[in-house]
């Protein structure tokens, strides 16, 4: 964790001197450059559940031990770089943002036992950058985390602002240390951002119904963490941040499979848990051909090696579970007829599976002998 303000004194600033951060990474995906204050407040209330914080402050009072981290922005104006949710909660409790009123806000203000004072404990920094490094600790690995794209954009900002002179390995190591994570994670997030930005700059390859709001960055990075998917679009591996050989056609295909919706809002990928299936498909050229022809992931999956792998995996799980059952039988003294019935069912099912596998193997051997 970087050191911030430990040596600095806490100052009490008036609420009307404090303003929301127009470059808040949390909202970077919604606004191109500057973030209008009214829009920020609306998002804080509707998307970030600031009411929960209002309830807590209204009940317990404002915890002065956690000052807002602010940067100077003119003579008596300050930008809150860390603590924007708390700023919104305080202003709402004091009735300073009536325009953004919702029934829950009015209720919380009416029932609050403690209306916060006009002055708020803050630590003042000369520049926004001085606070920037602290944000990662709090919003990437700390208590109040951002969404994946905000995190990735923040990591990129850290990299460019503080570590641009270091080698890539050193950059990743340093950023990981700052945020309390590991270099592969940082690399995967930055790789995801490279691929996302490439798509964005290319207007999402002209795909119908695919825009910035339709591409979930978390789902994209989860897919790209699969080496076969990363390699399919021309990355060397899931941590290829430069992505020099990114293949636009293949990236377009991947985005169309994952995010392009049909008239009813369905996607070829469907739920994100199907990323495993998609990985199995892209690993096999004939499965990819099938996916292109049919647009049906389940059908394409039949042509991949994934089914056999899935069967082996489930078989291993069944084996493990049965061994657990066997272990437990030595500790239990009272069994019921229902237990016995269940075991009979398992035995019968196992015999059916055994018979089916034996027949398949025999048929294959006979065919080879012929």
């Amino acid at each position, binding site marked *: 964790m970087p050191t911030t303000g430990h040596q600095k004194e806490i100052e009490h600033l008036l609420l009307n001197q404090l303003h929301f951060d127009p470059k808040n990474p949390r909202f970077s995906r919604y606004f191109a450059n500057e973030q209008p204050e009214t829009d920020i407040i609306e998002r804080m209330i*509707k998307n970030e*559940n600031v009411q929960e914080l209002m309830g807590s402050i209204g009940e317990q009072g404002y915890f002065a031990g956690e000052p807002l981290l602010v940067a100077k922005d003119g003579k008596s104006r300050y930008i809150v770089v860390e603590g924007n949710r708390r700023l919104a909660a305080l202003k709402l409790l004091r009735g300073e943002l009536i325009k953004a009123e919702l*029934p829950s806000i009015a209720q919380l203000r009416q029932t609050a036992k403690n209306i916060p004072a006009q002055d708020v404990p803050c630590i003042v920094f000369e520049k926004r950058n001085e606070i920037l490094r602290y944000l990662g600790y709090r919003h990437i690995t700390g208590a109040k985390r951002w969404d994946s794209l905000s995190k990735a954009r923040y990591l990129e900002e850290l990299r460019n602002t503080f570590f641009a002179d270091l080698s890539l390995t050193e950059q990743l190591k340093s950023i990981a240390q700052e945020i309390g994570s590991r270099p592969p*994670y940082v690399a995967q997030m930055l790789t995801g951002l490279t691929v996302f930005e490439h798509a964005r700059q290319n207007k999402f390859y002209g795909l119908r119904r695919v825009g910035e*709001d339709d591409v*979930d960055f*978390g789902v994209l990075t989860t897919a790209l963490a699969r080496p076969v998917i990363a390699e399919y679009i021309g990355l060397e591996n899931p941590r290829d941040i430069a992505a020099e050989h990114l293949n636009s056609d293949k990236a377009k295909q991947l985005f169309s499979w994952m995010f392009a*919706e049909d008239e009813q809002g369905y996607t070829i990928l469907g739920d994100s*848990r199907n990323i495993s299936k998609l990985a199995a498909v892209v690993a096999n050229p004939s499965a990819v051909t099938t996916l292109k022809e049919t647009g049906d992931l*389940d059908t394409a999956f039949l042509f991949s090696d994934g089914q056999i792998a899935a069967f082996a995996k489930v078989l291993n799980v069944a084996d493990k579970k049965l061994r657990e059952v066997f272990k437990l039988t030595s500790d239990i003294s009272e069994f019921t007829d229902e237990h016995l019935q269940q075991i009979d069912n398992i035995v019968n099912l196992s015999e059916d599976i055994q018979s089916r596998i034996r027949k398949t193997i025999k048929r294959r051997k006979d065919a080879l002998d012929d």
Partner: protein
Amino acid sequence: MTRIPLFQNLDTLPRLNHTHQWADYIELLALTSVDQLYSRGYLQETEGENEDVARDMEDVDFDEENILSTNDEGDEKLSRRWADIKTCLHSRQLRFRDAWPFELKDDVIYTKANSDNGLHRLYVALLLASSLRYITKKRHQAITTSLETIGYRVFCQLMPAPSWIVKPFGAHHADGYQGTLFNKITQLAIDLNTRCAAEQDDFKQGDSGDGGLDLVAYHPMGDKLGHIPIAFAQCGCSLQDLEHKQLEAHPANWRNKIHLQHPHANYYFSPHDLRQNSGRWDERLGEVIMVDRTRIIYLAKNYTLPAEQVDWSHVDEAMNTRRSLYA
């Protein structure tokens, strides 16, 4: 007299990993919220506080080398879950159009349920029937009965009078078959111009259940010779029981009760939106004509079911609930 509350455990997350069920949960929270909206930020808080994690989570597994740290992984899981829910909600916005009593905009779902809109009320009735986990047990019967009524109305439109005759077989309908299960089957056999295959002793004494059959439709074809078109239907709210309940009205389950000269059609009415985000069925379906939420709404629109037929107090109560998350 104090009325038993309609909702319970709304702070508890869904147990199963069906995206449509999570989307239902989010819709229910938006519908009942004092602000008439819900978003990712609220779910994040609930997930953080809630220890009742999904039991059968089927997660994307990573190679050891690619595994993210525990916190990162938890975040990605939430991010993926919300992405799946959002895709599902967006699909509903496109599929149900004006019948969907919500609006999805900028990652926030807003309620726009209008009690004067018959399709909105029908949708909410189906949403409640899909969400019995969040309904107080003593209020379940009104909701399951409402599903049977919805099924009956739709079935009547699919098998229109006067050619077809549609009758409730379930336990809660005064205008359907009466008496014990054996009596009901005997009366049904007479209607269908065939004979009963079961004996009275085959049933428990006083069994007045429905034997897994809620609705019956048949076309008499102008004579009493049998060999006529017949359809049986079952309605069910439970997602977990769907696998076997979809076959309760199947010919295989009725051959030993009634002699039919030709296998009847087997319908199942489910209030759930049984679709994956890929558009495939979310459940493995057997020999059944599945009428899920999408199809019920489609049929209701197609046949313009009169609004007054969707008039249940629990629907109004749900639409008028304004639940504070914080007070």
